[in-house]
């Protein structure tokens, strides 16, 4: 008799928890998988969602200039005051792309009138990335011939142009194709242009990143700084960008909610089924004198422990998935965001807690004796 009392195992609360998790390994594992999947999906979607605006606005930068600064048309012959380019760049922000343009109507060696534009090729290369040309010219006297304009030039390698009686010979640097007005023009470096024609830049094209609000703010800054200049947004670009970004954003938001909800409810259903299945454990513990609160705490702690492990694993898997998705789709990485972790944790803990507590209502009504007898 005394033997039995001395050898009675001391089963602490934590010991029970540990044994329950380890002993029913298969069950714990399937719960862990379910909670890991839910945490991973939510992490991946939230990470992508948080990064979506920046990614989309980056795509829209390729559409080129969304603000155009010009000399008012009433003052013919006037050009932008020197230093305007640097001042515009400063007012528009360091991320903005700016490119100066100057135009003159010259005559080709065939006697056709053609628009010749002076510009900074290094800047245009970034601003107008859709220009199709064999290679960007680098020499100071290069002439980039628009595809249509090239038809009106006799010698495409030594391009001879005349403006106001002054002739100049430039090295042809290939044909430019855009499908727009550029096709009918000849582009040459600004320095060579100003030396030849005496005309300084009259137009500055500006690309301001970040959608309608950013463009509006930059416009206000530019207009107050240059009250004499005409500063116009390219309306279709500004409006289009905001609409599309907003709509994609809402679409993604709907998708995130939908998927998170599905995963949450499915995981909830699976977990609560596996808790319900443990009616007999519940009945046995109750018969051995466990109180309702103790038992609930037991189930709850078990679920929370699995949920926490699920969050850790799921955050890693989900961040990796987000990284892969944005690498595949946007060709740039989306780095893991710690800021999504609280929400993921909250959601997973809520699912686990609900899954543990939901069956308790059902279990409470059961009679331990009846259950243990197998009725």
């Amino acid at each position: 008799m005394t033997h039995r009392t001395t050898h009675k195992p001391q089963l602490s609360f934590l010991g029970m928890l540990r044994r329950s998790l380890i002993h029913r390994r298969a069950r714990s594992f399937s719960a862990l998988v379910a909670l890991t999947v839910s945490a991973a999906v939510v992490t991946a979607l939230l990470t992508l969602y948080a990064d979506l605006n920046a990614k989309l606005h980056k795509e829209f930068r390729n559409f080129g200039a969304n603000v155009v600064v010009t000399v008012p048309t009433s003052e013919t012959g006037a050009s932008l005051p020197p230093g305007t380019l640097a001042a515009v760049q400063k007012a528009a922000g360091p991320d903005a792309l700016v490119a100066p343009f100057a135009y003159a109507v010259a005559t080709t060696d065939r006697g056709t009138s053609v628009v010749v534009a002076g510009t900074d090729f290094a800047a245009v290369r970034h601003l107008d990335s859709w220009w199709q040309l064999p290679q960007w010219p680098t020499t100071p006297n290069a002439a980039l011939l628009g595809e249509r304009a090239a038809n009106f030039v006799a010698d495409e390698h030594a391009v001879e142009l005349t403006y106001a009686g002054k002739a100049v010979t430039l090295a042809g640097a290939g044909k430019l194709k855009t499908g727009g007005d550029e096709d009918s023009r000849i582009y040459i470096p600004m320095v060579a242009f100003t030396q030849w024609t005496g005309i300084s830049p009259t137009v500055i094209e500006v690309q301001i990143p970040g959608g309608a609000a950013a463009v509006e703010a930059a416009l206000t800054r530019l207009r107050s700084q240059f009250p004499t200049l005409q500063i116009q947004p390219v309306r279709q670009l500004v409006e289009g960008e905001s609409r599309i970004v907003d709509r994609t954003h809402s679409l993604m938001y709907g998708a995130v909610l939908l998927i998170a909800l599905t995963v949450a409810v499915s995981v909830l259903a699976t977990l609560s089924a596996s808790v319900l299945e443990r009616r007999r454990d519940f009945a046995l513990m109750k018969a051995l004198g466990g109180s309702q609160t103790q038992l609930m705490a037991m189930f709850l702690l078990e679920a929370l422990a699995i949920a926490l492990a699920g969050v850790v694993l799921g955050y890693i898997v989900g961040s990796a998935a987000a990284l892969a998705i944005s690498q595949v789709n946007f060709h740039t990485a989306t780095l893991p965001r710690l800021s999504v972790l609280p929400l993921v944790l909250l959601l997973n803990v809520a699912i686990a807690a609900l899954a543990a507590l939901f069956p308790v209502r059902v279990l409470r009504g059961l009679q331990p004796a009846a259950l243990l007898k197998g009725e």
Partner: protein
Amino acid sequence: MFFRLLLESFRRQRRRKALAGLAILLGTTAVTAMLALATTVGDRIHKELAVYGANIVITPKADLLDVKIGGVDIKPSTGGAYLKASDLPKLKSIFWANNITGVSPELPISLNLASGQQIPATGLWFHHKLANGDSSITTGAPIMHPWWKLTGAWPAAPGEVVAGAATGMHIGDNLQTGDTTLKITGLVSTGDAMDKRVLLPLETAQRLANLPDAVSRVDVSARTKPEDAFARKDPDTLSPQQHEIWYCRPYANSIAYQIREAIPGAQADQVRRVEQNEGNVLERISGLMWLISAAALLAAGFAVSAAMATAILERQREIGLMRSLGASKGAIAFLFYAETGLLAIFAGAVGYLLGSGLAAWLGASIFAGDGAASVGPVLIPVLLPVVVALALAVAIAGSTPSIRTALEMDPSTILRADA
């Protein structure tokens, strides 16, 4: 006997069936909604991208060089070549005719007012029905330029015009040119050089300029496939088979090629600023939706197979009992698969309906204000077999390991076990 077992199983174990069914239902709802959104997002975003204007422009081949700076013609070409307006319905007869969503011809002219003033004007279609056989679209400049802001009304009769916001004219003014009186019905703000012009119906412009049937440029908006390396190939250097493939893909280049074939004397080119970037944006957004759909599929698959595994695991005793009563492994497996299959088909079909409704509602509320054209069909029939087959595959795959484990266990062990 088999059907009675099947029926009883559904009748008696309602809770278990409800849980597994719920998992399948939610999974298929989410997957259907995501797939439906992903398949339609391309069209929806394309409509939004129409804001950027035409992606293909048609000009007469023998045109003179434009001398244009900032949209203003410095030396208006005189006696240039023109396209024929009567050729335009041919656009709706090319291979990719259905991908052409907008056509806007224009004819710039100069109005000689009775006051001696000369003002620039452009002849345009406003709401023109372009039809060829069965396919027809109502198109014109206002639809192709959604950023134009109009006060008043677009011209509805030959003698009506709208004036650009920077012309200083007013609604209700009359313009006298020759023996024609033009009534201004609206003011339009375009944000570009168009603001200084008078916009009038194309036919009126042709009559005033004495250029019957002439247009000088046509803007075309077409739904295209983003350009890849194959699209950039010169079709005339390809082998006949390759040429066929190139021709039958909706690249901007192939559509432009078909337009050149259809309209004699026309030069059609893609507008690279619009086309190159639109394709990218479209690809990114629909790519994102497809990848998210894949994530939804994966998550739903996990959830459903986990639910199925649990549902079978719970019924080990049942399996043990059936085995001990002499049922063969095959018969039991068949019964369980039949149950799973029925559940998957039923819940999958309901999930398909719910998901389609959800996608339609989400799409309509996100892309609200795009007009009736954006309301596509709510049900996408092709998704039904796809979604049900997926539900079936996932449910069966999810229950297989549990069924196998249960069948491999000794029936007496299962029955004696206190689980």
